[in-house]
């Protein structure tokens, strides 16, 4: 048997696009389509929720949607691929400033500026990803943190273009408005779609061949390379995907804020929140960052409103307690507990202690 025919045997049977679609529809079962259905139901519920709440409350919920998108994006590189970036806020600030500079200096429409922001995010991810993704663990974390701080200083000092430390304002009134302001209901919709799109994108990526490659790189990079995965490519693409989502979120955030300063959109606490949300929810899953982002953002808003000066103290204490009791993340804990029927939290604590 010649090598050519062996390859022919190993090739899957060629199918037309219609056959692929038909097979896909036939393969749908409640067991494999419930996440999509739950997602659609959640999306519809959020659309309905908008009709019930006031614009002021809508603004608070908008922040939840923003963090859902950011947490999902961080999970791609930090959770699935295992490279915990502490500089994702660089993409956020880059997206925000790209949109603001284009809209303010060149009067370009938001809908044109936003894709440019995404492209800028991807380019920056490739630029810093290629050298930095060779590092691992804490070293990758500090290097990306440094990159974010460096980018902030560049924006801070490029005063002729960005306005520097004095901040930048997106024109929202007058004759020459590039895009009319969305208002609170408009931004509720915009951030809802952003969040839904990032969840859907991450879910699709995670279940694709590429998603398995990311997990393989996380589990054992040498072994992944040995079975023919181009680990550098996988890491850079995962980083760029994550950066694209964060840059897009930054673009919307910039337009929502209208006026902001480099210290606002390059605030390292955005990165820290992304990491905390993913870690507490459970990294390496779609539900984890979702639960983490919704839970923590609602909790922090609740504490801010009801506990006044004590809110940060309580917030920190809750982080400590959740980390101690659910080191693998809340979602991963419950998933395992349901499967093994062992719900003891004390046993869970014992697993990771010294």
């Amino acid at each position, binding site marked *: 048997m010649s090598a050519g025919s062996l390859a022919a045997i190993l090739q899957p049977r060629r199918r037309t696009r219609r056959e692929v679609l038909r097979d896909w529809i036939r393969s749908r079962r409640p067991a494999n389509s419930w996440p999509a259905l739950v997602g659609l139901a959640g999306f519809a519920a959020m659309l309905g929720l908008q009709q019930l709440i006031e614009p002021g409350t809508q603004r608070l919920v908008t922040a939840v949607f923003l963090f859902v998108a950011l947490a999902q994006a961080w999970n791609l590189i930090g959770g699935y691929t295992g490279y915990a970036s502490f500089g994702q806020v660089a993409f956020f600030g880059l997206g925000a400033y790209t949109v603001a500079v284009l809209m303010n200096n060149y009067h370009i429409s938001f809908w044109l500026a936003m894709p440019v922001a995404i492209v800028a995010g991807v380019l920056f991810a490739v630029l810093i990803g290629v050298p930095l993704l060779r590092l691992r663990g804490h070293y990758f*974390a*500090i290097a990306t943190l440094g990159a974010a701080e460096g980018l902030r200083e560049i924006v*801070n*000092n490029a005063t002729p273009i960005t306005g520097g430390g004095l901040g930048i304002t997106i024109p929202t009134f007058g004759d020459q408005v590039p895009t009319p302001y969305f208002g609170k209901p408009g931004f509720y919709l915009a951030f809802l779609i952003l969040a839904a799109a990032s969840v859907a994108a991450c879910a699709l990526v995670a279940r694709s061949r590429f998603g398995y490659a990311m997990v393989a790189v996380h589990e054992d990079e040498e072994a992944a390379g040995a079975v023919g995965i181009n680990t550098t490519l996988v890491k850079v693409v995962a980083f760029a995907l994550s950066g694209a989502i964060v840059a897009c979120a930054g673009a919307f955030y910039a337009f929502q804020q209208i006026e902001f300063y480099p210290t606002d959109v390059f605030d390292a606490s955005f990165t820290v929140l992304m990491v905390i949300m993913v870690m507490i929810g459970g990294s390496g899953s779609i539900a984890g960052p979702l639960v983490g982002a919704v839970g923590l953002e609602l909790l922090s808003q609740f504490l801010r409103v009801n506990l006044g000066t004590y809110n940060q103290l309580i917030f*920190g204490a809750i982080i*400590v307690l959740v980390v101690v009791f659910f080191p693998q993340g809340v979602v991963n804990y419950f998933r395992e507990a349901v499967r093994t029927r062992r719900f003891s939290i004390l046993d869970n*604590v014992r697993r*990771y*202690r*010294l």
Partner: protein
Amino acid sequence: MAQFLQAAAYGVVQGGLLALVAVGFSLVWGVMNVVNFSHGALAVTGAYLAWFLNVHVGLDPFLAIPIVAVAMFAFGYVIQRGLINLVINAPIFLTLLLTFGLSLVILNGLQLVFKSDDRTIDTSYASQSFALGAVNVPYGRLAACVLAIVITVGLALVMNRTRLGHAIGATGMDRGAARLMGIRARHIYAVTFGIAAALAGIAGTMIATVGSFNPTTTPGQLTLDAFVISVLGGLGNMYGALVGGLVFGIAESIGGLLLTGTWVNAIAMAVLIATLIIRPTGLIGKAQYSGRVEV
């Protein structure tokens, strides 16, 4: 030229001070592979303790150092034994998250008690300086720098010459093997963290003496500086933080002279990233720890 020398001299004394902040951070990172986000918070806690002793008891900050060190050691020991040891086997970023939460608790607690005002410990000598040729050397910073060097050498001696130091080193190299040799890893980790907390407290006292501190901006800056210096100097060598701190201090001080505005911050980060790409083990770090870098 005089200006340049002055900047270099300031860089050396400032670098010594920052080295004192970083040495405990580097020790904890090297031994336990824990990046301690609450290091800055511990330093500020020490600073408040010394400030309190100075204002209410009238104790000189240099005399307050032993009290601060003992109190901070106890505090650090309890934190490690009671909290961090619980998640030491979990993925590495959990310890980072835990210490981040801890730092929120400590700093907001301090803020509730002491308010967020800038504080400083007033002494008659800290702001005085003497002239060395064309260069002015401030007494306070010089003393802090000398103290940093003495403490670093002392720590290196403890690590290399005593049973405790050997136990800490062994646990850092291979915890399983160390436990088989009868070393109580829980206790050793707690002692290591206690030492780091004590050193952070001493550093905080010095910062409060030569400058000012507050519970909102100082801790984050100190943690970041400690992180950068540890990477720059390299892990696994007690002198790493000292070398990294001096290089960092001089680079920042001379950079501040040559560059305008806030560009100096960008340069510091560029130096850091260049170090990581070209020589990830740091300037004098041990190769054994480069296993964790895994380039």
